[in-house]
């Protein structure tokens, strides 16, 4: 097995939530390898641990035990600042509820991750313009999120995830707040990005959308119970 093709390697990842006296095992011993350019979906009933897994993949949360290598680099023991740096450079998030910042216009929202990277204003403008072009939203660059429909907001969110050229896109129920037509458009966009070489990990419990992925992983009670190749 060639390791340099691996983008994500999870080894025996366990997540336990501790509240006063009760331990809840959200994830128990997850092994998962994701190759560069792969399109993986994670499915499972509510409470199976998919969101927790996505948070750990996105370095928003840390595992209780186990190792996580991103681009062959262990990221399990990084401090908050280092984790923020990795998030900024390697990961693009797409959320169910879009999570655009209401006070910033479309351009500024897409620009934000680049700002945290310390990129020069000129480079930022180029990158933001390209990303908005890619999702077909460049004509709304100076609009506030509240002036956009849900489908448009999600496209802006995708542009924001893309702008920093991350190693992987993490999508958490990206169509959950959209009607079928807009949902289909966003899925189409993700499929195109994948065709262009992007690595995508998507949480969904919609079987139809899981079908877009090359590989579907099913979680149940914090464990991987099934993998399907498409």
């Amino acid at each position, binding site marked *: 097995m060639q390791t340099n093709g691996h983008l994500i390697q999870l080894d025996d990842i366990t997540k336990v939530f501790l509240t006063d006296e009760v331990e809840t095992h959200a994830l128990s011993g997850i092994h998962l390898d994701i190759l560069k350019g792969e399109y993986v979906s994670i499915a499972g009933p509510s409470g199976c641990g998919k969101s927790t897994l996505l948070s750990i993949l996105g370095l*928003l949360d840390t595992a209780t035990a186990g190792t996580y290598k991103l681009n062959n680099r262990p990221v399990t023991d990084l401090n908050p600042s280092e984790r923020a740096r990795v998030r900024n450079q390697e990961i693009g998030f797409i959320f169910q509820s879009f*999570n655009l910042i209401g006070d910033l216009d479309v351009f500024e929202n897409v620009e934000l991750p680049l700002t*945290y990277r310390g990129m020069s204003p000129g480079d930022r403008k180029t990158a933001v313009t390209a990303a908005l072009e890619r999702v077909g939203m460049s004509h709304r660059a100076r609009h*506030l999120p509240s002036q956009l429909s849900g489908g448009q907001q999600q496209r802006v969110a995708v542009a924001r995830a893309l702008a920093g050229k991350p190693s992987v896109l993490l999508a958490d129920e990206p169509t959950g707040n959209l009607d079928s037509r807009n949902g289909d458009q966003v899925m189409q966009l993700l499929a195109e990005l994948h065709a262009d070489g992007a690595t995508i990990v998507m949480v969904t419990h919609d079987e139809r959308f899981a079908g877009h992925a090359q590989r579907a992983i099913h979680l149940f009670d914090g464990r991987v119970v099934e993998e399907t190749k498409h």
Partner: protein
Amino acid sequence: MNDLKFAIRQLFKSPGFTLAAVLTLGIAIGVNTAIFALVNGAILKPIVAQDPASIVAVFTGRKGVDGGYRQFSFAEYQALRDTKEVFSDVCALGFTLAGLGKDAESQKRSFAFYVSDNYFSLHGANLTLGRGFSAAESTPGSNLPVAVISHAYWRFLGGTDNLLGSTLRVNGDAFTIIGVAPRGFSGTHALVAPDVWLPLGIYSQLSSQWTDGSSDLANPRTHALNILARLAPGVTVDNAKSRLPVLDERLNALAPPESGGARALMVQKPSRFNISTEPESDDVTGVMGIVFLSLAAIVLLIACLNLANMLLARGAARRKEIALRLALGAGRGRVIRQLLVEGLVLALLGGLVGLGLSYWANGVLLSSMRNVFEAMSFSFNLVVDFTPDRTALAATFAFCLIATLIFSLGPALNLTRVDLANDLKQQAGEFAHSPSHRLFAPRHLLVMAQLALSLALVFSAALFFRGGAMAATADPGFTTRGGVVAELDYSLTRLKATDALPRLIRLRDRIAAMPGVASVAVNTMVPYINNTDAKRILRAGDPVDATPSPGEKQGASGVYHVVTTGLFRSVGIPILEGRDFTPAESDTPGAPRTIIVDEKVAKKLFPNGGAIGQRVKYLAASPDGTRPEMEIIGVVRNTRHDVFGNESHAHLYVPLAQAPEASVYFQVRLANESPAAALAFLPVLRRELVAAESDLPLQSLSTFANVIDRNFGTWTIRAGAALFGVFGGAALLIAAIGVYGVHAYAVSRRTREIGIRMSLGARPADVFQLIMGQGAKQTAVALGLGVLLALGAGQLIASVLFRVSPYDPLALGSAIFVLGAAALFACFFPARRATRVNPMTALRSE
């Protein structure tokens, strides 16, 4: 489990919040209670125990003319007392100063009232001990030496029953104590009371030494009485006026033949602050009271608004709990009630702290006032009580309720106006605000204004501290080292000034012979004493302007000192030219007339120098119309007479024998100049003086340093520093809590945004900066504004403070530093909390 129990549990759960809230409320309510207690004590609380509304002051003015008021004659008083149409009772009173003491040694100059026999009964005052005056004792010329003493003076004398019947010396004469007034009894005055009340019958005897003219009360031309009356049942101040003309006629019929014109009576509610021959209104004080209460109310309002922000911030975290309660069937009213109960518990805790603070603050104020009154030239009782009483307690409770409504009703209404479906999912709404709106929203502007105001207050406090420090270190031109001051007033023993002279000389020589005494002299005007007496001199050859021009006055004016030889050595004033008075000049009547001036006077009169040997005279003629000439024999260094003002006073010194005075100070300088030595010398000196003269009218004895310390100006500077310091500190604290509140609220509203930023790679430092940056910008704007305000305040303060620059960079710098540090510190906590936002929770959208 009831609302109260839950409220208390909630408060214990977040002790930091509770502490900040209770402290804010405590300060705000404390300010209100303290000021209410002040206003209540000075303006509102009834002074007369029994039916205060029916007591009036009676005045007599010229009929048909505005003004022309005078006191009443005894005959007029009697006539009024005999009428029953308007007044049910009428009493007469007047006041004077008298030397008061059990013996000569303990004698002090005191405020004394002479009153009619019904004085106490008219006020409804039940004497603590003994009796009031009889009709016989109040009859003019009866000269029965009896006295009623104040409760405080009775306590001062030992407070025992056997003081009744014992002897009290009034101006050296023996009086029998026949009664003790009720505790705190002051007649109709709100602030002060006399130590002693004497019967009208001894008026002539008492006043003979003060007035050379007619002092017989029986004389219808002696107008020496003020009149207080109790209105007859059913008569009010307003309807009394229509009935007064009848009384006018009766009084006018009594008037001696050549009195000028008819007079008219007037009645008015007695002033709480004055005993006057003409009607005076307390309106000014009332207005001041309203102003202070309004200021206090603003403090409470601001504190409450700040607190409301904190509650909103907390509310964001509790939105879910509240939505849930509503979902479980609670009516909105129920939930609002629960939130109000939580607020009330906070407010009551704050009220408790506030009550403690106000007790403390008003206690400090009173003792400080007492201290400065002690330095006045006569004594009286401070009867006003600023400590919160039951009325003030009720007011405090009212403040708590008002505060609760202001700070918790808004958030409660806001929090219960919920969209159930959304809040249970914890989807914070997205806010579309421009960055400038975020920075300058009304709640932010309010906090910024508070910061600006606090800066001005803190800067003012700093200026006062600087002023105090400068006044303390500034060279006044003399020295207090090793100095002791003893005050004697022979006028209280009815000794004429010329007769006191040999005694003073003898005492001075006796003190000079005491071991350890380096120098001693008589002086009538000790530096920094709280009064001034000035005279104006001009060159002997210059004619006196018959019609002085209003602007420039003739000659030179100086603080007038009557002294003996050795004064300059005793207080360390260098003689620049010429010489001191010789013992012959200062001690012997009839010696050639001489004068010593300070450099300021010398320069004014003789700009080209050569003052020594020149002759000068007073601008004001002596009683006999002459202006005797004096020769300048010395020029001494200029000294300060007060801490205020940039310009020091000029000074004149004349020998005691040339202008004898009965009321003087001995200024002693010890060889050992340590403060401890001066203190230790006080009892030694007292023994020596008492041994010298058994009926010595010693009024005060203290170290020179202590006299300076009790200077009214020094007190004002200290009080200013304390007042601005306390208010500045309180304002600073409230403002800091305000800053904390708005940013905590901002962070709670931006939790989701912060989560998004973190997911996009914002480091903890970036998030921290996001919140701190906003705080820093606001602080900078607020401080910029505050500097303008502070410089304005500085102009005012510098105009009264000695040698303080209105731009004092040290004071301004430190005030800005303190304010900026406090604001950023307050911002630090919300900013740190922002870095701990859990992006997972913030972004969860199920």
